[in-house]
């Protein structure tokens, strides 16, 4: 990055986050402006394709909480995805992905972990949520901090590391070669939001599943002694 705008970096992170949020809100308005049809086409099809995955994830977790859980996970995913993909734009200041500086991922991880606590308070009551933080092991509150750190550092390391590599390569070879690095950088840019969302969903499932379900899951399942059944043909 040019030295001239280095002192503006905190503002750039905030402005780019706001830009991504505006784009997402505009997309939401555009996709729902027309009346939704039973058989989706075009934009509605794409939006339903994205949302379906989160709805299935939320339904596995807690069938009565789909209207609350699915938007939470989906907005995290889309927000991180679009923030990462900013680096492939060719405008000078906008192409700095806000997730490439540690304040951005830390904010997202804090939102995720605080959101998990709030959601678990909504489903299990404040006492149940507090109980999850301190029971059966009082040190579980430390593990929440550890989860926050690991979520944010993972995102920061992948996107920030890739962005640093791009900056170094651009200094050495300004034409042609950065294209290859950008193409390789698209892989973590798409996979990291997925990993972030999946891990958040795992922590959320741990926090909100009722104790009956946990006991049911922990109970030994009787396996058929014969050859396991095969699905399909």
């Amino acid at each position, binding site marked *: 990055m040019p030295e001239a705008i280095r002192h503006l970096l905190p503002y750039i992170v905030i402005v780019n986050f706001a830009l991504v949020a505006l784009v997402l809100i505009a997309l939401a308005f555009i996709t729902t402006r027309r009346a939704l049809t039973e058989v989706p086409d075009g934009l509605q099809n794409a939006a339903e394709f994205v949302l379906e995955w989160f709805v299935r994830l939320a339904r596995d977790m807690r069938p009565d909480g789909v209207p609350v859980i699915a938007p939470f996970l989906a907005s995290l995913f889309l927000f991180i995805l679009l923030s990462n993909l900013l680096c492939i734009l060719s405008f000078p200041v906008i192409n700095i992905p806000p997730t490439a500086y540690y304040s951005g991922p830390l904010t997202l991880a804090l939102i995720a972990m605080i959101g998990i606590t709030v959601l678990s308070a909504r489903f299990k009551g404040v006492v149940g949520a507090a109980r999850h933080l301190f029971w059966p092991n009082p040190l579980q509150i430390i593990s929440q901090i550890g989860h926050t750190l*690991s979520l944010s550092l*993972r995102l*920061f*390391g*992948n996107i920030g*590391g890739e962005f640093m590599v791009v900056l170094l390569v651009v200094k050495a070879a300004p034409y042609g070669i950065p294209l290859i690095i950008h193409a390789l950088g698209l892989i973590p840019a798409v996979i990291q939001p997925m990993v972030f969302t*999946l*891990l958040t969903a795992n922590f959320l499932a741990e926090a909100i599943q009722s104790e009956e379900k946990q006991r049911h899951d922990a109970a030994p399942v009787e396996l058929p002694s014969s050859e396991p059944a095969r699905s399909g043909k």
Partner: protein
Amino acid sequence: MQAILLVFIPTLTIVPAAIAAAFAMRKISHAAIEGMTRQPEIAPQLFTAMLVAMALVEALVIYCLVIALMVAAKI
């Protein structure tokens, strides 16, 4: 001395971690791909599980990368 430290400490922080993670990832992808070829109908579930496992391994390397960056900035 300063220059030698600047080169070697971050390098020695990140390189063993990357090698160890490469071995771990080899094992994860080997198991996942073998499972996918044996049972293609559960391939999507295996793929998500593989991604999460890879991310957990990768996080350790990322910690080392962050430590290396911090050391490089300190020296």
